[in-house]
């Protein structure tokens, strides 16, 4: 499909303004076309395909592929059934030739553990006062929908990092499992950079709730008491409205969901909320379709629930983190278009373009590569610093503390124990009235830098984050920005104005070119009102739109016919606030006065 003339002009405009000034230093009326132009340019230049032999992927058979999502994500593109399915490879946002994973010795230089300890470790909690802890919870809720590299590689020798002098890490060195290698290679892969497969569906399809294969989907629909699939199309919740226990997990008492790895109470809250939302959608659909069977109701409710989640992410969550006129307009424009929600709801779409009337309902377009999540997107979404180390759970009625916890006691199987002490409503209230951490140096949660897995096994997630980018061939910070057409800092002073950080960077890195992407993202001064860096934003401009634009259920099939009129209206009429009001009406006074429910609620 040809790039329309107006988009070509926007691309050239962005190229022009970018030479003189970064977009957030431009007036609003120049900044908006620049942002749109960056997206045009990146669609042309920053999408690379790694799936050299798609025949290695086996899309599911059976089911109605036309008007419902397949469990494994196949047939979302009917002409290319394998695209975006679970097991498909991660794509790239930089040229393939520049994605060779780093090899020793550069792979371990500087020592990721030292980077973790000397640059990332939290000294004292640096909060973001205008956001609440539902922000990191939502982020992880989304990431679990989009991507996972699976467990580590237990068949090959792990990475071994020597410990810097004086390090208190248990053991003589730090071992980190390698990323699970691609188990399906073809002759065309010879000489090409290593590839990795996404164990989840790449699509924005709610797979964190519903799973990425049919077996998992059936599990969340099954009543554990009877062992039978629920006939009403609902997700099974226990008598208290909580997620049931995952009987298939090694962890006793872990809650069940489509994806329940790296589980903590923030995830639990959102999974529970949207499982309840699924069931509410089923109830609504049954009013219009009283004779429909449970399978049909389940699949339609899934379609609606996933779209509602995508909408919330686009018009509420992301604008909370991009709290500037340009940021809000860019993200709301993705969904409603520049003409806005009121116009769209009053008059419908104006043409099939995405700029004026938004992406939902526009024509599907994969642009220059088949749709896939990318390694670079994975890398810029490493935002663990958002997590606090301590949690204070308080009663929503009077704000009195019930219990104070560290991260490990609100994670994994401990979540269900927590609910025995703190009711769900109070957990939600406590998270929504606490602040997340800022994405800056020295703010990585201590609990994640010494995460106890089992027995004598500990993980330093910060060191692992740094190593993963190098291992998977994600370019380091300067090279990364170069690939995005961004200005590249020439010195540590050019990267950060903080003299302490400059000194610390110089002590770790031989040159600015060696600075890791994660570290650079945490040093960079964010655009005004933004919770993350401009570098990350550039990837989001591309990928946030792409998640919608490539998916026919958000584009050509985003219609009342496919979603049902009631389902379609449900998406249009609802948002995170209304979801909360529906399931927790008594909590409304706490968020009634906040502009965005991801901002701190009233105590």
């Amino acid at each position: 499909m040809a790039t329309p003339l107006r988009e070509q002009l926007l691309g050239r405009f962005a190229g022009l303004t970018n030479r003189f000034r970064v977009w957030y230093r431009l007036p609003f009326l120049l900044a908006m076309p620049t942002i749109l132009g960056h997206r045009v340019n990146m669609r042309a230049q920053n999408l690379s395909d790694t799936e050299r032999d798609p025949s290695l992927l086996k899309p599911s058979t059976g089911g109605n592929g036309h008007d419902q999502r397949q469990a494994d994500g196949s047939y979302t593109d009917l002409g290319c059934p394998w695209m975006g399915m679970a097991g498909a490879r991660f794509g790239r946002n930089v040229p393939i030739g520049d994605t060779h994973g780093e090899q020793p010795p550069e792979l371990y230089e500087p020592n990721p553990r030292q980077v973790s300890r000397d640059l990332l470790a939290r000294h004292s909690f640096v909060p973001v006062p205008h956001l609440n802890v539902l922000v990191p919870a939502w982020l992880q809720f989304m990431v679990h929908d989009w991507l996972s590299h699976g467990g580590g590689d237990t068949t090959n020798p792990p990475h071994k990092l020597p410990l810097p002098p004086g390090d208190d890490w248990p053991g003589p060195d730090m071992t980190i499992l390698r990323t699970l290698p691609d188990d399906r290679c073809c002759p065309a892969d010879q000489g090409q950079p290593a590839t990795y497969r996404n164990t989840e569906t790449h699509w924005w399809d709610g797979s964190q709730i519903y799973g990425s294969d049919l077996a998992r989907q059936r599990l969340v629909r099954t009543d554990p008491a009877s062992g039978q699939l629920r006939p009403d199309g609902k997700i099974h919740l226990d008598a208290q409205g909580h997620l049931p226990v995952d009987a298939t997990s090694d962890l006793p008492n872990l809650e069940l969901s489509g994806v329940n790895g790296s589980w903590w109470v923030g995830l639990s809250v959102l999974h529970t909320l949207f499982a309840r939302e699924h069931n509410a959608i089923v109830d609504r659909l049954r009013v219009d379709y009283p004779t429909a069977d449970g399978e049909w109701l389940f699949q339609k409710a899934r379609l609606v629930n996933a779209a509602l989640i995508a909408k919330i992410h686009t018009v509420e969550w992301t604008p909370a983190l991009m709290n500037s006129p340009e940021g809000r307009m860019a993200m709301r424009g993705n969904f409603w278009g520049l003409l806005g929600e009121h116009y769209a709801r009053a008059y419908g779409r104006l043409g099939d373009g995405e700029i004026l009337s938004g992406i939902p309902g526009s024509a599907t377009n994969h642009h220059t590569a088949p749709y896939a999540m990318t390694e670079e997107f994975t890398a810029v979404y490493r935002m663990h610093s958002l997590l606090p180390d301590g949690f204070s759970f308080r009663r929503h009625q009077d704000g009195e503390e019930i219990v104070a916890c560290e991260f490990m006691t609100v994670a994994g199987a401990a979540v269900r124990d927590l609910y025995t002490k703190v009711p769900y409503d109070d957990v939600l209230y406590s998270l929504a009235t606490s602040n997340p951490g800022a994405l800056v140096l020295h703010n990585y949660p201590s609990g994640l830098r010494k995460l106890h897995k089992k027995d004598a096994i500990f993980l330093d997630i910060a060191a692992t984050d740094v190593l993963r980018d190098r291992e998977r061939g994600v370019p380091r910070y300067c090279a990364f920005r170069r690939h995005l057409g961004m200005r590249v800092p020439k010195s540590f002073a050019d990267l950060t104005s903080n003299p302490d950080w400059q000194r610390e960077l110089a002590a770790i890195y031989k040159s600015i070119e060696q600075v890791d992407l994660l570290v650079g993202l945490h040093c960079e001064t964010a655009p005004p009102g933004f919770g993350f860096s401009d570098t990350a934003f550039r990837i989001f401009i591309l990928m946030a739109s792409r998640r919608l634009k490539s998916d026919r259920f958000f584009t050509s099939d985003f219609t009342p016919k496919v979603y049902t009129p009631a389902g379609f209206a449900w998406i249009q009429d609802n948002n995170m606030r209304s979801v909360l009001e529906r399931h927790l009406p008594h909590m409304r006074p706490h968020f009634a006065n906040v502009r965005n429910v991801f901002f701190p609620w009233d105590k």
Partner: protein
Amino acid sequence: MSRSLRIPGLIDLVRADTRSDIRGLANDSRLDRRFEARGPLINRILVERIRNVLRIDGVPLPSVAPRQDAERMRTQDALRRRLDPSGATPLWDDETIAGLVGVVRGRGGSELGPATQQAVGRLFVADYRGTGESWEAAKVLDDAVHTRNPLRAILLQLSGRLQRSRQLLADLVKNDLAGVHATGIAVHNLVRGFERMRELWSDPRWRLRPADAVVEQCMFAPPSVLRQATMPGATVAGAVRPGTLVVLELDVARAHTPGRDVELMTGTWAQCPAAAFVPALLRVVWERAVAAPATGKAS
């Protein structure tokens, strides 16, 4: 993505620049290289250019010969077998390789064209010697095919430079048509590969990486190849009618998805007969460049 440009009476063009589309079009039996003067004006001009430039004594070079041309199939098949690096005949000599290794390791870049041309030319004539003059002739031939400036194309024809260059290239390979294509057109992709290899050589990290990875970095496709529709129908890139020109934008596709099926059209009827030779040559040059002593003479 694929796109069509159709202005009645003026142009009828389909362009494809994604790997999957190119793969589908390359094997579409309705698309061929007969290059008959039909269709709208610009189509005719483009076809005429190919017919005029890539012919010797009225015979098309094998790279633009039709799919079912028996002579093309025979000679290309024979060439493919002759250029098989696993065969008994050596495909390069030490002098030629030493020249390329020297350039990769930083010696004068101006020597790259003639040195590469010599490596290719010796596949056809044992004592082929690439010179500044022969390399200039190759640039003229390539320019005559690929230039987007119609005035330049006309000038090359009218001035006689094209004819002289083509004749020189033909004389040097003793009128072997495949040799003319190899030393006049295809050689430019190989030169780009060696230029890339020079860049990689300057980055010490690449010397630690597997040679396969370097070879893949240095494989270049022609910017584009052309097909002409022989009958109407719907293709993966859109509808075509007799005379529609289909441009396979190999270089653009390669940028997003590198792979031999793009660079060398492997697995299609138009597969490059040097599909095994090119990576083998790149590999041997790189390996010798890496193995040569750091301060010693490159050989």
